[in-house]
């Protein structure tokens, strides 16, 4: 299963090894990890809670991966997104793509992240010294998704 939503952390080396499996046709692995920062819009962050929409989340991620497979010449792709309470420094998301050559791996990895950011139903609620606040969507994310 190449799309996972989980509260548990992940080990990127293990996940990449599993993704490649025994496929020695793979020459390139591009990956992206999103992590919790301790600051956002100049305000300190104590942590955050990731909420999602069970059912739609998995469908949405699977659809994005299927689109990436159709659009780019890749061997395989993986998305892991965590939900629940996270602390600064914690890993949030892993997107990894294998392909024969690096161009397609980079493109597909970025494509999946850009679409995930605007289409996958996750919401971040930050804990700050001034109280909790829902993170606002960034216009730059909409623009990144529209470039494709």
């Amino acid at each position, binding site marked *: 299963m190449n799309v996972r939503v989980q509260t548990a952390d992940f080990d990127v080396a293990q996940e990449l090894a599993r993704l490649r499996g025994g496929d020695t046709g793979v020459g390139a692995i591009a990956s992206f990890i*999103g992590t919790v920062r301790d600051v956002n819009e100049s305000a300190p962050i104590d942590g955050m809670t*990731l*909420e*999602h*929409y069970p*059912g*739609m989340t998995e*469908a*949405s991620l699977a659809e994005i991966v299927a689109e990436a497979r159709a659009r780019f010449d890749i061997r395989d792709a993986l998305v892991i*997104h965590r939900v629940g309470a996270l602390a600064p420094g914690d890993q*949030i*998301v892993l997107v990894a793509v294998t392909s024969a050559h690096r161009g397609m791996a980079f493109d597909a990895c970025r494509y999946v*992240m850009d679409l*995930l*950011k*605007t*289409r*996958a*139903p*996750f*919401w*971040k*609620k930050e804990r700050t010294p001034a109280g909790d606040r*829902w*993170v*606002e*969507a*960034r216009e730059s994310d909409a623009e990144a998704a529209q470039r494709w």
Partner: protein
Amino acid sequence: MTNVPASIVTTTVRLVYLARLREAFASAGESLVLTSDDSPSVRNVVAALRSRGGAWAAELADGRAVRYAVNHCVAHPGSAVKDGDEVAVFPPVTGG
């Protein structure tokens, strides 16, 4: 010509509210019965909610960024809804 009365159809949808809207509405979801003489859409759902006033009218006002899904697929105000559909109402996503 004779006017034939349109048949009254009721459509029951399951509503899901998420993230900031779940908190604003103080509800994770509910059942909503639409009464309409036409094919109902997400727009009819939103209109029914807005008519409640308060947070409903404020959060769903024109110009507010609200997103919709019907049966887990991204939807738009014009998307059709039918009996038994799950209609989700949520703010722009902020994962990753």
